[in-house]
Each structure stands twice: as structure tokens, then as C-alpha cells.
């Protein structure tokens, strides 16, 4: 196989000799990296529309029941919400620094920053678990035991349905992200990522930042809409 093609395609052969990570369907390492990054972006565009549908449902119901949504929003813990927003922003910084470390050949720093990102993701999920358990305790989980004082109980139940759906799906994305980073850490410890080849770190970074962006919109829309009402 190689005997037949090697003389006919000397350029391709030498390019492949340059990096062991270059797959045969790509001409150069740059082309391969850009194709991977583009593929992740196409997936993220489908994610934009996936979460977009939920944000649209939220918009329609908030427009219909604006007073009830504002009152229900005040039952969320703004301190924990703000804290978690900051945690995710720090985790995006450590993720960006992991990509920077990979691109500049700092092999130990890749592992350190990936582990820091995972730890911050775990802190976020821990705080979320505490918030969820408070909601169970306060009978604010939609279902037979839902209880909300005042005449707006049904619209408030819609708010909490959206709250659990949107933050729940966001949390699932966080769990997937932590799983991806676990795989990256195992590879990075073997020294697999170099300045020439670290596409998996870069592409998982895109995913992690996207999940951060979803929370950047969830936080003000769920936690902050009823704060100025006294």
C-alpha cells in the first residue's frame, strides 16, 4: 500500500512524517486542527438552538405571568447564585490557562489547570445540590407536594418547572464536561499534548466555555428578576 503511493505523493508523505498525530485525510496539522474546532462549533450551534428553545419558553411564560415569575424568583438564593456564577467564571479562566499551557508546552501546568477546572466544576455542582435540597425542603419542587403562598401558585409552579429543567440540563452538561476533562487529564499526564498537537484540550475548552455562557444567561433570568420589588 505504502509502496504504491509513496513515490506519487512525496509532499503528503513528508507532511505525515512531520507529526505522528496527523490523520491521513488531512494535508497539514493546521487543517486538521481547524476541522476539529469547526466540528465542535457546529455541535455548539445545535446546543445554542437546544437551550434557545428553553429560553424562548421562559420568555413566553415570563411575559404572560411577569408578577408571579418575579415573586417566585425571590425564592432563589441570590448569594449562592452569585457565588456559583463567580465559580464558573474562575473555571473558565483555568480552562483557558490549560489551553494556553498546552499551546506553550507547559506539560505539568496543563494537568494542574485541568484539575483546578474540574474541582471548580465540582464546587458548582455541590452548591447546586445544596440549592436543590433547599427547594425540596421548602416544597418548591413542581409536583403533588408543591406549595407556594398567594394566588400565583400555578404560574410559580411553571417558573420552578423551568428553573429545574434549565439548571438541571445545564448541570448535566457540567457533569459531561467534568468527564471530558477527566479523559484529558489522563492523556495529559502521559505527556500526549504538545504545542503542535493539543486539539482535544482546545476543543473541550470550547465546550466548557459554552456551558459557562449558558449559565451567564440563566443567572440573571432566574435569580435576579424580582429583587427590586419590596
Amino acid at each position, binding site marked *: 500500500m505504502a509502496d504504491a503511493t509513496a513515490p506519487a505523493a512525496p509532499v503528503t508523505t513528508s507532511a505525515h512524517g512531520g507529526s505522528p498525530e496527523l490523520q491521513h485525510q488531512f494535508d497539514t496539522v493546521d487543517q486538521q486542527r481547524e476541522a476539529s474546532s469547526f466540528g465542535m462549533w457546529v455541535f455548539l450551534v445545535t446546543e445554542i438552538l437546544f437551550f434557545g428553545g428553553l429560553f424562548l419558553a421562559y420568555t413566553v411564560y415570563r411575559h404572560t405571568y411577569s408578577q408571579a415569575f418575579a415573586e417566585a424568583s425571590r425564592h432563589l438564593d441570590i448569594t449562592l447564585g452569585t457565588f456559583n456564577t463567580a465559580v464558573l467564571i474562575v473555571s473558565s479562566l483555568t480552562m483557558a490557562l490549560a489551553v494556553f499551557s498546552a499551546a506553550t508546552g507547559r506539560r505539568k501546568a496543563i494537568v494542574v489547570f485541568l484539575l483546578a477546572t474540574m474541582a471548580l466544576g465540582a464546587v458548582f455542582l455541590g452548591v447546586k445540590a445544596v440549592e436543590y435540597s433547599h427547594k425540596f425542603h421548602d416544597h418548591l419542587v413542581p409536583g403533588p407536594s408543591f406549595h407556594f403562598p398567594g394566588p400565583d401558585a400555578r404560574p410559580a409552579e411553571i417558573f420552578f418547572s423551568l428553573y429545574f429543567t434549565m439548571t438541571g440540563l445545564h448541570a448535566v452538561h457540567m457533569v459531561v464536561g467534568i468527564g471530558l476533562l477527566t479523559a484529558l487529564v489522563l492523556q495529559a499526564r502521559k505527556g500526549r499534548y504538545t504545542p503542535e498537537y493539543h486539539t482535544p484540550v482546545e476543543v473541550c475548552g470550547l465546550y466548557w466555555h459554552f456551558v459557562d455562557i449558558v449559565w*451567564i444567561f440563566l443567572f440573571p433570568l432566574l435569580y435576579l428578576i424580582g429583587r427590586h420589588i419590596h
Partner: protein
Amino acid sequence: MAQHVVPRKVYFAVFTALIVLTATTTGVSFLDLGPWNTVVALGIAFLKATLVVLFFMHVRYSPRLTQITIAGGLFWLAILIALTLSDFMTRGWLPTLQKLGP
């Protein structure tokens, strides 16, 4: 095209801006600005998202194909929202349609 390595000071500057904007949006939510509360909250969220996309996600330095794909995705999101709301928000404008309204 060679790969672009974003310098660390850019990451730290973006990070600082994101934290300041988070504190701002939480603080402003306690002021009564009427309908402007939502405008300010969403404006800050879009600003934060733009910073993350351009710098943390390197889109400022990405190939044009990636940039157009993202713009296309946001355009379809805009269609989803605009067409749904143009139906929903205008129900009841015409008297004969009022019985179909929400």
C-alpha cells in the same frame, strides 16, 4: 495559517471584566429601574458572553468559516425567537382572533 496563542494577560483582563460585570448585574438588580432592569440584565449577559466567545473561545482569531458558522447559528436563534414572539405577542390584536388568544 499558524495557530494563534492568546497571551495570558488577555485572559486575566477578560476574567477581571467578567467578575466586575457579575457584581454589577447583581447590584443593579436591587435598584428599581422599571422595564430597564431586564434590559440592563440582558445587556450585561450579552456583553459577558461576547467576551467569553471572542477571547476565551478564540473566535476573534478563528478562521472566517468558524465565525460565519457561529453567526449563522445566532441568526437561526433570532428567527426562532422573533417569529414565535411576533405570533405570541400579537394575539388579541384583532377582535376576531381574541377567542384564540392565550
